[in-house]
């Protein structure tokens, strides 16, 4: 017996907002990682899931047309960021992965402590987003 095609209107409308909320939360987690629980890994996972709910609510083709990113490349770029931070400190004659920090006055945020470890974390973030989405989308695209 063939079921009639269910209507996903509720889900699709709601997901548009939920995805943005999850994305905002992921950025928060990513930036919180400096002194609190959080960081690149969990932030990346949240970003991946914020994109994933879009794929769930809509379908592969629609989202592929909207988000034209090759997530495999993310892995390469992310690893480059992560190792690059380590190497740069090496080029200046310090030990590998030595990190530096300073406090800056930014226009909106006020006094902010910025570190080079943030760049490393950004690399981790990109790797996690790339790897998680590559795995999930590959499995989903698999022909039966």
């Amino acid at each position: 017996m063939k079921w009639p095609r269910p209507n996903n209107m509720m889900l699709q409308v709601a997901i548009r907002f939920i995805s943005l909320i999850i994305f905002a939360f992921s950025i928060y987690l990513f930036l919180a990682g400096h002194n609190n629980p959080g960081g690149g890994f969990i932030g990346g996972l949240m970003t991946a899931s914020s994109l994933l709910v879009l794929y769930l609510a809509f379908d592969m083709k629609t989202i592929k047309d909207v988000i034209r990113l090759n997530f495999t490349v993310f892995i390469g770029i992310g690893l480059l960021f992560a190792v690059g931070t380590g190497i740069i400190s090496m080029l200046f004659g310090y030990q590998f992965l030595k990190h530096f920090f300073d406090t800056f006055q930014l226009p909106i945020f006020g006094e902010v402590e910025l570190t080079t470890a943030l760049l490393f974390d950004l690399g981790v973030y990109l790797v996690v987003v790339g790897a998680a989405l590559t795995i999930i989308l590959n499995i989903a695209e698999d022909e039966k």
Partner: protein
Amino acid sequence: MNNLVVLPIVIPLLTGMLLILFKQYIQLQRTASFLALVGTTLVHCLLLFEIKQSGVQAVQMGSWPAPFGITLATDMFSALLLLTSNVVALICLLFAFHSLSAEIEETYFYSLFLFLITGVNGSFITGDLFNLYVFFEVLLIASYVLVSIGGKKKQLREAMKYVVINVLSSSLFLFAIAYLYSITGTLNLAHLSVRVAQTGQDALITAVSLLLLIVLSIKAGLFLFFWLPGSYSAPPTVIAAVFAALLTKVGIYGIIRMFSLIFYHETHVTHLFIGILAALTMILGGLGASGYGDIKKILTYNVVIGAGFILAGLAAFSPEALNGSIFYLIHDMISKALVFLIGGIVIHLTGTTKLEDMSGLIRTHPALGWMFFITILALAGIPPLSGFIGKVLVTEGTFVSGYYWLGAIGLLASIMILYSLLKIFMNAFWGETILSVEEEKGTTKGLMLPVALLTTLTIVIGIFAQVLVPYVDLATYSLLNPEVYIEAVFSGNPIP
């Protein structure tokens, strides 16, 4: 502080990830991965001389002082293994250029290969137990993909077993690390050594060390090698060769490092246990190697025998025996890669792995046949080839330490190696030539150079072993005197 130590990890990692971005450009991938491995090999040569001159090299990542940050440290032992493994990997890469199909090459083969090397180098270099686990995972994850690359039915079946076994052993590894951390409160290898020496190696620590031994012996193919023959016979030749040459050796390195740097107080328990396992491994491996009639099976069981023999030297735990182990380890990496490559070429030519279906290759491929013969002699330990000095020293060491049975089984295993490999030689190369050149399933074009290079290497190491002796002596010295390693890691800072 010496940032040279970081380069063996960084160079292959960086190249591997850059190659992910250039998936389609095979020629670029080949050149880049070749250059990366040449680079790491040069770095290892530099490291070797630096260590010879000024002792163990250590670097603290991110400048956090020793027990708090992550330490990378190489002593002579790991530097020798690094150099050998990278030379072998480089030669296997040459073999890969001519033997792999374009499809496999395009599925990120070179990136994965370089990540595998990253993991291997990292495990040899790291001075932190948890980091050792991490680098094990790096090389294992790369190897999961390499086992199943190409996606044949047999590969997928074996890959599943391989993944399950390794995930299980990795989780046991984590348990062992957690126990050790809760007992000693540290994971830095040097600091662990200090703490264990201070409190004495009581029954609890010995039990944890045995758990660690079980985990590492699954990876090294020591006694718990039931998964090894299947998974090493599934992937393409060059990948199987790299696995046989490097992966089990990383496990062996782990065992030797753990039981010489940290758990060296209760040798009559732990090292005797290792000795018994090594003896059982050699017997079972020998039986397997002489019983099967399938080239790949015979070769994989030979890997197992090699692992048993190297650890017999650790069980004896005397300077001669460890010297022998290190010599044999270097020899084993080179000759196992060589024997797998030759076996792969034979299978490639005849299109079968069954010994009874092949015969008389020596008429059409004399060079290949004689190089295989040289390899057999080297593996059996005939002078002046590379296996000889290792065998003599290990056997002497076991006799001196009173483990007569272990030495005897080692010699027996050599005879079994000789028998099993001669069986391949007699069946595949000797006898009636049933395949003419036109009927062969493949060509040896481009495949002979790497094989010849490795053969030359076994001969050179055998003849000029004298040159290696001071290096190996230094390696044994740092293994038997943990304070050298500890001193270098802490570099004068107070030990908390």
